[in-house]
Each structure stands twice: as C-alpha cells, then as structure tokens.
C-alpha cells in the first residue's frame, strides 16, 4: 500500500541500522550478564579450578553448594538465613506498599495542600548517608532491646524503602487519566469503587514494579543487617559474607553462596515482570 517514492521503512520492518542496534543491545546485555553468569559457573567449580586461570571448561561439581548449605551447629546456616530474609522482606514490602499507596494517592490524584513540600520531605529523608545514622539507630535498638530481632529490620526496611515507593507510585498514579475518574464519578462510583475498579487496574504494573524494587533493596541490604543483627535474625547477605575466608581459598564457595542468594530475587523479578507486561498490555485508553 506504500505510495510511490516512499522508500522509508515501515513500522516493524527491520533495516540494517535496526539489526546493528539489536546486535549492540544484545552485546551490552551479555556484557552486563557475564559477571553473573561467571559467578554462577564458579559455584560449580572446585576451589582449585576457581582460583586458577579463568576458564569456561571444567568438571562441574556440586561440592560448593553442598558445603554452603550444610547444617553447621552453632553457625548461621542457609535455611535460617533464608527464613529470616523471607519474613523480613515480605512483611517490610507489604507494610511499605500499604503505607505508600494511600500516600501516593494523596499526592497525585487528590493532591493535598503543599503536596510538593510533602514529596520533597519524603525524599529528603534519603539525603543522610545511612552510616551517619547508624550509631543513634544502634543505641535506640539497644535501648528497646530490638537488636538481633526480625522486627527491627522489618521496621528499618519499611522506612528505608518508603520514600522511594511513594515517589515511584506517585508518578504511576499521576498517569491515570482524569477523564476516567470523572467518568466513573458520573456513573456514581464510590471512592472505593473508583480506586479498586478504575485506578488500581491501571497502576497495577507500577505497584508490581515498586514492590519488586522494595523486595530487591530489602533482600540485598547488608549494612544495617550486619551492624544491628550480627548474631541473631541474621539475613542472607550476612550468610554470604560468612563464606569469605581470611586465609584459604573461598572463591568457589562464595560464588555458590552468592548464586543461591540471588535466586529468590531473580524469581521475584520474573514473577513481577509477567505481571508488569500483562498490565502494560491491558492499557487504559487505547
């Protein structure tokens, strides 16, 4: 159907430049992925192989995975660390979203007075480096007898992720077309119906993306955990750290521990991605 003289590419048609860009995207993707791939690979090596010249060919072994997941009396074992992390991450993310969703609504769809100041106040709590706050946090936690408990990290991770969640969700809420809400109001929908039937389906991918980020940040957090929960309710990053030996080879066992530690985040990302894509594909005004 193209008119005579129109030689430009049709949408969806591949050009040489397009192929080049695809190739570049793949190369960059592989470049970013390679260290993760090599880490996973090293987990299947013996210590001798992992410490020798880098190689992709070797006799794979489950030795390191068995070693890091073995039950060690008196020491932090994998099952305990994963259970602690799972509880802390799940609950802190639920709390974070429960607080951030109403806040984001009040800052975008029905903006409260001076909403910009409120938004700035939220993000300003992230200006202080966490290392500067660690001593007061430690003293308060010590005074309240909360050190080495899951509750402490649940509170801290909720607070840590809240500003980010509010900012992210606000931008998703802000994209909800006003016309849709007005149309719902004309149809007599209550506030709750507007939220559950109109707004939520549109911002669901955004909520999934925000929740995923909260999960990732909470799962990977090391500094607060190591300073406050060193000897009890310790999380997965502390367990990974215990695979480092000070005199002796540890690259393979550290790789195995790190690979296991990344698996839940990868799975969470995969699940959230499916949700996000479905949400995006549904669309609102198309």
């Amino acid at each position, binding site marked *: 159907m193209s008119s005579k003289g129109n030689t430009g590419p049709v949408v969806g048609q591949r050009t040489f430049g397009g192929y080049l860009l695809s190739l570049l995207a793949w190369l960059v993707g592989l470049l970013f992925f390679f260290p993760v791939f090599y880490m996973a690979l090293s987990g299947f090596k013996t210590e001798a192989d992992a*410490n*020798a010249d880098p190689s992709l060919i070797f006799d794979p072994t489950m030795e390191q995975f068995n070693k890091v997941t073995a039950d*060690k*009396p*008196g*020491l*932090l074992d994998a099952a305990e660390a994963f259970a602690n992390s799972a*509880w*802390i991450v*799940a*609950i802190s993310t*639920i*709390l974070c979203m*429960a607080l951030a969703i109403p806040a984001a609504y009040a800052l975008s769809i029905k903006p409260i007075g001076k909403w910009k100041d409120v938004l700035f106040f939220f993000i300003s709590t992230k200006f202080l480096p966490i290392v500067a706050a660690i*001593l007061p946090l*430690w*003293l308060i936690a*010590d*005074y*309240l*007898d909360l*050190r*080495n*408990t*899951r*509750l402490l990290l*649940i509170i801290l991770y909720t607070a840590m992720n809240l500003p980010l969640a509010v900012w992210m969700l606000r931008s998703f809420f802000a994209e909800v077309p006003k016309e849709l809400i007005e149309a719902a109001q004309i149809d007599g929908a*209550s506030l*709750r119906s507007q939220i559950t039937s109109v707004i939520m389906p549109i911002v669901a991918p955004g909520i999934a993306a925000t929740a995923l980020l909260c999960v990732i940040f909470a799962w990977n957090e090391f500094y607060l955990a*190591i*300073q406050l929960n*060193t*000897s*009890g309710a*310790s999380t997965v990053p*502390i367990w990974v*750290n*215990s*695979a*480092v*030996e*000070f*005199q*002796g*080879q*540890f690259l393979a066992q550290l790789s195995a521990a790190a690979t296991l530690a990344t698996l839940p985040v990868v799975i969470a990302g995969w699940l959230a991605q499916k949700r996000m894509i479905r949400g995006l594909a549904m669309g609102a005004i198309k």
Partner: protein
Amino acid sequence: MKKNQGTERRSMHLLLVSVLALFAIVATACGSTASDAVDSATDAVDEAADAAEDVVDDAVDAVDGEEDAMDDEDAAEDAMEDGEARSITVALVGNDNIEKMAELAPENFTAETGIEVNFTVLDEQTLREVTTREVGAGGDQFDVVQIGMFETPQFGANGWLVGLNDLAAASDTYDIDDLIPAVRNGLSVDGELYSSPFYAESSFVMYRQSFMDEAGITVPDNPTWDEIADIARQIDSDEVAGICLRGKPGWGDLGAAFTTVLNTFGGTWWSANEDGSIGTSQVDQPEFAEALNFYVDLLNDAGEDDAANSSFNECKTLFEEGKVAMWYDATVAASLFPAEIQADTSFALAPVKVTDNSGWLWAWTLAIPVSTTDQDAAWQFIDWATNAEYHQLIAETDGWAAVPPGTRQSLYDNPEYQEAAAAFAGRTLDAMLAAPIDNPGTTPRPGLPGVQYVGVPEFQDVGTRCTEQFSAAIGGSVSVEDALEACHAIASEYNG
C-alpha cells in the same frame, strides 16, 4: 441499593480481617517459629505488653547502672542454679580452623559445661568494624570476640577487655607460661594478658626446592633482601616468576609485607614523641624511598603477574601451581600446602637489610569484652579453645599437622608434632622467636609494640590509604615518587 451496602460491609469486614492477619504475620515473623495466626495475634498483644514492661525496666536499670550489672551476674548465677542452658555468642573470622572449632564445640565443650555457643562468622574487615564498634560502645552482643594482635593492646589499654591473668592463674587447664614469649608480650599491656592466642604466625621465605636445584642455586637460611632479590631475578622466566609478594592495598595486606621491608631498611612511618605519641611523618625520608623503590623494582623485574592485585590467597595459588619460585608471606601458609607441595618446599628466615630480624608477628586471639553478661562462661570457652588440651583434641580428629600453630611452646616440644610438621615446625618456631616485636627497626616507634604495623589506631587509615598509592605504583599507574608524596601528605595529617 441494599445489595450494595451488604457488599460494602462485607468488604469492610474483609479489610479488618486482613489488617488483623497482617499484624498476626508480623508477630509470627518476629518469633523464631511459625505458629498459627490466631495464637500469634494473641502472643503479639502479650509480647507488646512485655516489651513495654521491659522498656520501663530498662529505663529504671539505666538509672542505676551498678544494680544492672549486679542483676546480670545474678541472672547468670540463677541460670546456673536453675539448671537453665547458659549460652554465649562468639564473633569470629571465617576459616577452616574456626569452622573446626565450631564443629567440635557441641560435643567437647557444651557437653562438658552445659554452655551453648553461638558463632557469628564474618569476613576480616567486617569483623573488625563490628567488634570495634561493639566493644568500644559497650554493646553486650558478644561474650567472646576474635581480635588480632593489632587491636588487643589498644582495646586492653582502653579498658574495653577483661584482663586474663587472674582467670588463667585460677584455671587448672590453662598454662599462661606456656605461651610463646613474643606472642604473649604482643597481647599484653603492662604484663596483663588481654586476649588468648588461638593461632599465631610470623613471616618467612618459602621456595620450591626443585626449582632451585635445577638452577643450581642455594638459598641462605638467613638471607638478606639483596640476596633474595638476586635469586629472584636470576630464576625469573616467562613461565615462572622469581618471587611472589603482596601488592593488594590494605594495611594488613601490602601494608604488612612492605612494613617489614621498611623496618629492615631502617625506615619507619612516623617518629615518636617522648611520651610515645605520634611525632612527624617519616615517609619523606630516604630510607622509606629506598624501601619502596626496592619493593616495586623487585616486583617489576621478577614478581608475579598482576602483583597489584595479589595477596596471601593469590600468591598461595601461584606457588602451588609452580608459577612462582619463592614466596615471602605468613608462616601459616606452610601448614596449608598439599602434601606434594609441602615435600618440595624449603624455608628461609625473613630477609634482612640493616636489622638482625625482620619477620612479622601476628596472632588471632579470643578476648572477653568487659560488657559480657557471663564472664565465667566466656572464659571457660576461651580456656577450652586455646589450651594445650585443645591441640590434643585437634590432633586426635585431624592429625598433629592440622593443629593451629604458633601459640604454645609445648606444641613445638611435642615429638609427635615435630614429626608430623617436620617440614615447617622448626622454621616456624625460629621465626616466631626471632620476630622483633619490641624493637622492629632502627628508631623508636609511636604507640604500642608492633612489627608489620604501627601500634596506634591511626595506622589503619594511613596504612590503607598509602598502600592504595603503593599498589598503584606497583601496577605502574603512578610513579613511586608521586606515591611517596601522596603518602607523606596522608601520614602528615596525624603529625603530633
């Protein structure tokens, strides 16, 4: 309309139940086991009440600190009387020796004493940060901490650690006089021992005998650095590097190896004031430049590949693979080689220049922070893990060669150990005894005794930042002159 109201009410109920369920989940998560949600919700209320009571109690206790301390002691005594399980928490650096200790503790310590031991294993740097903050701030998280020879005298002098002399004297199993003198001195302040060594090391030269035989070279038992450098350059080839030296930044990595060279070249980091405080930076002195030039040139001419990123583990791998002929590092390495490598390895004392001895001295030790709530249990554990009977226990399970070396004379007097560790036991003891802990160089040093470090807290910062410069010089990205100038500026920040 009625139908709508009914739906909304049901939804509100659902919301209420959801919120209650959420609190139940939080409560469950905070406990150590998952129990059913209803019980947890009830428990959560009880716990909240208990927590509130605890907060009030804590506030009262905080007003009367002495009473609090007495309460702790009473609690420990009550626990003993009631037959309740006593437990201690021990912070450690991860390695095979430590994991062995954790493995043996339940059957050999807890079964005997009834004291449960929880181990927290961290990497070296993190352990340092956590224990320094914990011990310094008076936290009661740990009853026993693993610290090094650098921290022990400083923490001891600050009053952060329990002195061990009286506890050792009262023990039937702990022989304090059996400790190797240099190690005991390095862990004491004014004669009071502040931590008990678990294992100790010096430094020496290890070399592959077959490589030397092939080249017709004899390495002296007590070599100079010039001799070692000559041999390294002579034997260096495309396949085999002459020598492996630490080049990775860090006061305990490159900083340790280089400072022993610096000491024996007659240099030092700072001069000392009469009261023992830091004087002025000596990094601009000719001896310092000579030592650093020597170290960098030797690595450039005959060192391992990628020396700027190499430390103990990297050199150990290269040595075992036959990619380096000599290696100057910790004596403990000898006990970690596979048998076939051990058979081909010979040893020489740490090389010297203008001093008589230059080997470093280091020990990993167990100490009791004064904030512990059960000092008696903490000492019982340290006694068990560091006395001569523990050596016997390791020998029974893993053989004499696996016993943590360097702490007790009795180990070196034991004929079975002498036989099992024939390859390195004698040389290790020689190196330990020769380590110049009290007088490592040619000039007085500030702070507490130390060989491969200066015994002042400031050295951690200066040593780490300067070795970043030196490592860059080894890697070739900055000149030795620029590295020295930058380091002099860093060290001068602390001039007294």
